[in-house]
């Protein structure tokens, strides 16, 4: 029985690892991750998954590393949805789609963009950014300013 339990646990662990595409490395102030309708306070070390939405309060910032070495950070009063992420560690092929719905974002692109330019796309309410490299910032202006 114990053996079966252990086997089940490692199966879950393997699934969890497969779904983890990134990890929170920096947080300050109020930061939440919205996942499957739940609102989870972000903490350093928390895994990030596809379809997560990072939401910060007025004093909140968060920095995340991804499996292909992409780095993202989200500024205060912001919302960023990680729409799609895939990465093949052997070929470095992948897709990274994220949407900055409000606020500010800083990006340092990673291995997939080096392998295939525009593998990474950032959407804002007004535009689409095709990322060929490497470091840039994005701001979605508050409505009314």
């Amino acid at each position, binding site marked *: 029985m114990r053996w079966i339990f252990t086997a089940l646990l490692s199966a879950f662990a393997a699934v969890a690892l497969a779904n983890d595409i990134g*990890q929170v*490395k*920096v*947080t*300050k102030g109020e930061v939440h991750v919205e996942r499957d309708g739940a609102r989870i306070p972000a903490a*350093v*070390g928390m895994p990030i998954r596809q379809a997560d939405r990072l939401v910060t309060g007025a004093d909140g*910032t*968060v*920095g*995340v*590393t991804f499996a292909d*070495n992409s*780095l*993202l*950070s*989200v*500024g*205060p009063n*912001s919302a960023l949805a990680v729409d799609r992420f895939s990465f093949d560690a052997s070929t470095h092929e992948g897709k990274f789609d994220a949407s900055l719905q409000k606020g*500010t*974002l*800083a990006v*340092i*692109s*990673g291995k997939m963009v080096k392998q295939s*330019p*525009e593998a990474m796309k950032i959407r*804002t309410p*007004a*535009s*689409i*950014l*095709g*990322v*060929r*490299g*490497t*470091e*840039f*910032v994005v*701001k979605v202006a508050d409505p009314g300013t």
Partner: protein
Amino acid sequence: MLPGPDGKVGTVVVERQGTRQVLDAPYAASHVRSDGSLQASRISEQETAQSFGATLAALPARPTVFLLYFLTGKDELTPESTSDLDKILADMKARPVPDIVVTGHTDTVGSAEANDKLSMQRAERVKGFLTGIGIPADRIQVAGRGERELLVPTADNIDEPRNRRTEINVR
């Protein structure tokens, strides 16, 4: 667009309703006007710091690769790498929840099997340095590549110090 640590600037293509702007110069910017059109512009360093200072401060440390070199046939560091070690360990220690991959390599002296074993010993030795400063073992993956991935390509049985190395990838 921001210059990287080496001063180089990448490229981002901004698209809006069929129009596109290619940004590939330092501090080049694209602004969506209130009528919806794209306007090429520049953002000053000062403005960048003002609008994005808090955001940029939250960027995680850049992923880095460190190399440590070994004495021939052993899992002992060269004197030069021994003196580099403290600086490397300090960088590792400064990273919260680091993801580390340690890959051991050898030169082509000796059999392929012996080199597989030696490269793994080198990787494990480096893992020992890392756990020794308090990095949890479960954050460190180790692999031994033997003589399969020579940094400097050589024929068999060539003593090449630059191939006797361990690569530490940290994110």
